[in-house]
């Protein structure tokens, strides 16, 4: 076929057909609920769809009005802010996290439900989301490890009273962080203490709790606090979490409001507690062994169980900010010059304004793509926890029955690693080729399934918290800059400046980035996770085969590079002979954690796109717009995949080469030619001496050498890496074309006439 073939064919097409086709494939309107429900897999969950609408009305109504009226400009918990709590109750948000038996209305695990609610609130204001989620955080320890009586008592008290019911609703606070120099990132340096105050034979012990908190959310009004404390008495073993009431005898000092710069619609204080409480308030109960009170769960175990869920929600709070920035930015860009004396309606300046400039479009594409990737990753993690909750509960029950705790439990779990790996292998084998009986057997084994999913959950949770909030904050800065001076004022439409600052808190509380990187550094090297990861590479290649424009192949190549690098770093040493991938070497482990997050987010974004393509046609309302959405999201995936590949390539190269010593001119056996070695060779191979000088480093007879740091690094032993890296660079092919296409969409997409919340 002549190279002109396709072009000629296109030339024959009628103009109208081509135009209609282009219009059909263009992004015509901003993605609405129908698209989101499919992408984030709640198209069949009417309970969640209703919750989303209710929370959205709350966010874009009372919350937005408060922010617009300047309610964020005070540190104190004002009456105006307090009124928000009643709005939460009235909208159904407060009861959203509760089980129906305690007055809630969503059956089953509620990770996705709470994630969606936090997302909707943060679309307008992150502080309102923090405020709404804080009681759930306080209830977290009770939900995860509380005794049945504790669960019943506190859950039902925290549900708004039903019509006709005379009861004041309870709100809670979660107190782990302590004044310096105690608990922060390091949750084990507890100063809060618990002692036995009175313990009469055969009676419930009375405990004295001393705890000071720092930055405790909901503290201005909390009726109860779940506090982390350590034993300060030899009659109590280890640490625990304990429930404090505002009317317990002693000091319940709410403390001064934190002078925070962000999330001002939430209350944060530094409280002081010195209270007498019955031992039945220990979360999860206790046993008495040899006259010693032994809490059933230590504080570290409880907070690990709590945070692994709530951190995902926080990640989605930042994702919402990025996606919420798109519409105000487009509106600003288009309207930038309208109203000017010389700006005629219909002119490019009038219609497109700043959107005539490529850079602002490209940057907005980047913001949008990051928002999609982080939402994809966050909601995937929330869904995983919904699936995982019953499996984990089953595991806890089995191990409790067998009396297995701590190390004994870990030992038992280790035994499950082999069948878990076998299951992952079988699951990836085509049904016709695998041992069906064995597969079914392993699938039905809930302990094996626990191992299989736990490995992913242990990576996804910190990845969401780390990447969504950290990289999200960086991207919010881009969003701010696209709004010019407005961006950094209170008047900025969409509250983008405030959201940028808010995002930084989301990167900090519930464990800053270092905590997440530390966790990932361990969990991402676990064999079961790596077995998943290998299958994901194959999966991305398959996707790429079917859908080449998605960037799936790029992601797969970057995943291979990451995996190679991880293996290399685990075995390699630095130039001083010190091993590289070790707990203490955060300079090695942390960047690898960062790199992984880019990959996970990109992969999930692509998987969500496939879901939209698959299920979109089921929704009649999408019929018209679907081709455009699919095309546009494909391009966003490609853009994001390229960015991820770039980050991974950069980080891996830096780690692989960065710990080697650069060859020097002085070193013995430096990897370069000496001039006097080349001269004789020239006799046999004429021209070699001249040629060598343009390809490699030659030290002249007088000892002089090219002006550079030393002979170039030799890649011997690194061929696999360099060839993967080269391949990855090639994999970026087309990514900028995708960006150009997506940028064009931004100039054409229809946006609402006016924003749907006051700013």
């Amino acid at each position, binding site marked *: 076929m002549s190279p002109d073939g396709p072009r000629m064919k296109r030339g024959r097409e009628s103009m109208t057909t081509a135009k209609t086709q282009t219009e059909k494939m263009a992004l015509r309107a901003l993605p609405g609920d129908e698209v989101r429900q499919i992408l984030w897999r709640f198209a069949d969950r009417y*309970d969640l769809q*209703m919750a989303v609408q209710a929370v959205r*009305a709350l966010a874009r109504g009372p919350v937005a009005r408060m922010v617009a009226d300047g309610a964020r400009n005070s540190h104190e918990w004002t009456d105006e802010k307090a009124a928000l709590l009643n709005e939460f109750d009235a909208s159904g948000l407060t009861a*959203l996290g509760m089980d129906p038996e305690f007055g809630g209305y969503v059956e089953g695990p509620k990770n996705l439900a709470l994630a969606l609610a936090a997302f909707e609130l943060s679309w307008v204001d992150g502080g309102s989301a923090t405020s709404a989620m804080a009681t759930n955080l306080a209830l977290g320890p009770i939900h995860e490890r509380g005794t049945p009586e504790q669960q019943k008592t506190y859950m039902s008290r925290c549900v708004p009273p039903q019509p006709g019911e005379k009861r004041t609703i309870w709100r809670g606070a979660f107190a782990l962080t302590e004044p310096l120099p105690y608990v922060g990132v390091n949750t084990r340096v507890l100063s809060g203490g618990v002692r036995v105050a009175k313990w009469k034979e055969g009676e419930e012990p009375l405990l004295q709790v001393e705890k000071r908190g720092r930055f405790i959310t909901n503290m201005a009004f909390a009726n109860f606090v779940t506090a982390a404390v350590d034993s300060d008495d030899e009659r109590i073993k280890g640490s625990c979490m304990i429930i404090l009431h505002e009317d317990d005898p002693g000091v319940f000092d709410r403390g001064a409001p934190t002078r925070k710069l962000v999330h001002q619609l939430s209350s944060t204080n530094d409280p002081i507690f010195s209270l007498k409480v019955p031992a039945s308030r220990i979360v999860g109960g206790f046993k008495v062994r040899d006259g010693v009170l032994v809490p059933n769960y230590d504080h570290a175990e409880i907070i690990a169980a709590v945070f692994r869920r709530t951190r995902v929600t926080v990640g989605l709070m930042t994702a919402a900010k990025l996606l919420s920035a798109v519409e105000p930015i487009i509106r600003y860009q288009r309207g930038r010059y309208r109203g000017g004396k010389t700006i005629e309606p219909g002119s490019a300046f009038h219609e497109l304004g700043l959107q005539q400039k490529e850079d602002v479009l490209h940057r907005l594409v980047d913001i949008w793509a990051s928002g999609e990737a982080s939402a994809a990753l966050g909601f995937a993690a929330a869904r995983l926890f919904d699936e995982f909750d019953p499996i984990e509960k089953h595991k806890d029950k089995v191990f409790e029955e067998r009396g297995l705790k701590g190390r004994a439990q870990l030992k038992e779990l280790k035994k499950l690693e082999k069948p878990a790996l076998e299951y992952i292998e079988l699951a990836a084998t085509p049904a016709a080729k695998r041992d069906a009986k064995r597969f079914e057997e392993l699938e039905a084994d809930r302990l094996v399934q626990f191992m299989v999913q736990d490995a992913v959950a242990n990576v996804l949770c910190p990845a969401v918290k780390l990447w969504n909030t950290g990289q999200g904050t960086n991207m919010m800065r881009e969003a701010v800059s696209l709004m010019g001076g407005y961006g950094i004022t209170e008047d900025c439409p969409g509250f983008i400046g405030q959201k940028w600052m808010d995002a930084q808190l989301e990167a900090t509380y519930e464990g800053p980035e270092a905590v997440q990187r530390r966790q990932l550094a361990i969990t991402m090297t676990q064999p079961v996770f790596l077995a998943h990861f290998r299958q994901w590479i194959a999966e991305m290649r398959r996707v790429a085969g079917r859908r080449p424009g998605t960037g799936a192949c790029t992601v797969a190549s970057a995943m291979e590079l990451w995996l190679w690098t991880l293996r290399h770093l685990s075995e390699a040493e630095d130039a001083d002979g010190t091993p590289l991938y070790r707990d203490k070497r955060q300079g090695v482990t942390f960047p690898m954690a960062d790199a992984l997050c880019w990959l996970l987010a990109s992969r999930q974004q692509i998987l969500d796109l496939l879901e939209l393509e698959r299920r979109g046609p089921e929704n009649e309302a999408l019929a018209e717009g679907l081709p455009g959405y699919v095309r546009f999201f494909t391009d966003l995936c490609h853009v994001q995949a390229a960015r991820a590949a770039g980050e991974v390539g950069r980080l891996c190269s830096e780690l692989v080469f960065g710990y080697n010593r650069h060859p020097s001119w002085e070193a013995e056996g430096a990897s370069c030619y000496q001039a006097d070695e080349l001269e004789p060779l020239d006799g046999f191979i004429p021209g070699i001496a001249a040629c060598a000088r343009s390809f490699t480093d030659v030290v002249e007879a007088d000892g002089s050498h090219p002006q550079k740091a030393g002979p170039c690094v030799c890649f011997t032993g690194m061929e696999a890496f360099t060839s993967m890296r080269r391949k990855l660079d090639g994999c970026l092919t087309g990514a900028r074309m995708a960006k150009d296409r997506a940028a064009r969409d931004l100039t054409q997409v229809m946006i*609402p006439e006016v924003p749907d919340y006051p700013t």
Partner: protein
Amino acid sequence: MSQGFHLVVCGSIVPDPLQTLEPIQGAEGPALKNEMMLPAVLDPWAGHALYEAAHLAAATPDSKVWLVSLGPRAKLQQLMMTIAPKAAFELVALDGPAGGFTEAWETAEALAECIKTIPGLDRSRLLLFGGCASASRDAGVTMQMVGERLEISDQFLAVDELTPQENGTIRILERIEAGRYQVSECAGPPLVAAWATGRLPEPPNNAQLGMQNMRSIMPALQKAQPARVGAEGVEFLEVEVPKQRRNTRVVEDASVDEMAREIVEWIRK
């Protein structure tokens, strides 16, 4: 009262007014650009009718509310996520276009025929509610035509208040010109009430109620019959969205008298 009311509310979707509404010439006549992709809301006057109906039903034992909606099924489903938690009702859905370019006559025909087939509906107890107008096409005639087809001759337009009396009659306040109300007393159902704004605010969300409603809403949507409505034989010469005109001037320290005088002058112009 021995028997409660059977309240049928006619109401459907309109495009969210905050969206960009741009009339275009579609394959089958005029349409709004990207209409199916835009978020929709409950037609505001029909909304008032629905909330008034739910309130009345809750206060009158043995009453029931049906919401009869003619609209694109998928869009109706999305709308239900917002209104199901606000009022107790049973949905009767008809799948068809609900835009501003359908002929009220055809819509009324489809709605009336559908209402006639509602199982268990006692038309002697029927209070037929709807909006006095629609936000997508202010025809203001649909409810009368539905009423006629159901042979209901007691019709009240632009209703703001409807109060059942002790003696079984119903007192109705209708908006008339010059900001006044016409007060009527009607012997009882059946009647048509096309609501203006009514007196009730939008009810608060009740998630439990929403879950309860959804149990019947989903099957109703699944069995929604296609309704053939359009604007056969009608030729649209021109369509345009009403332009919002806003002349804002920031004037500080103007007295109330000055402001009033200026407004009167502006109205006179």
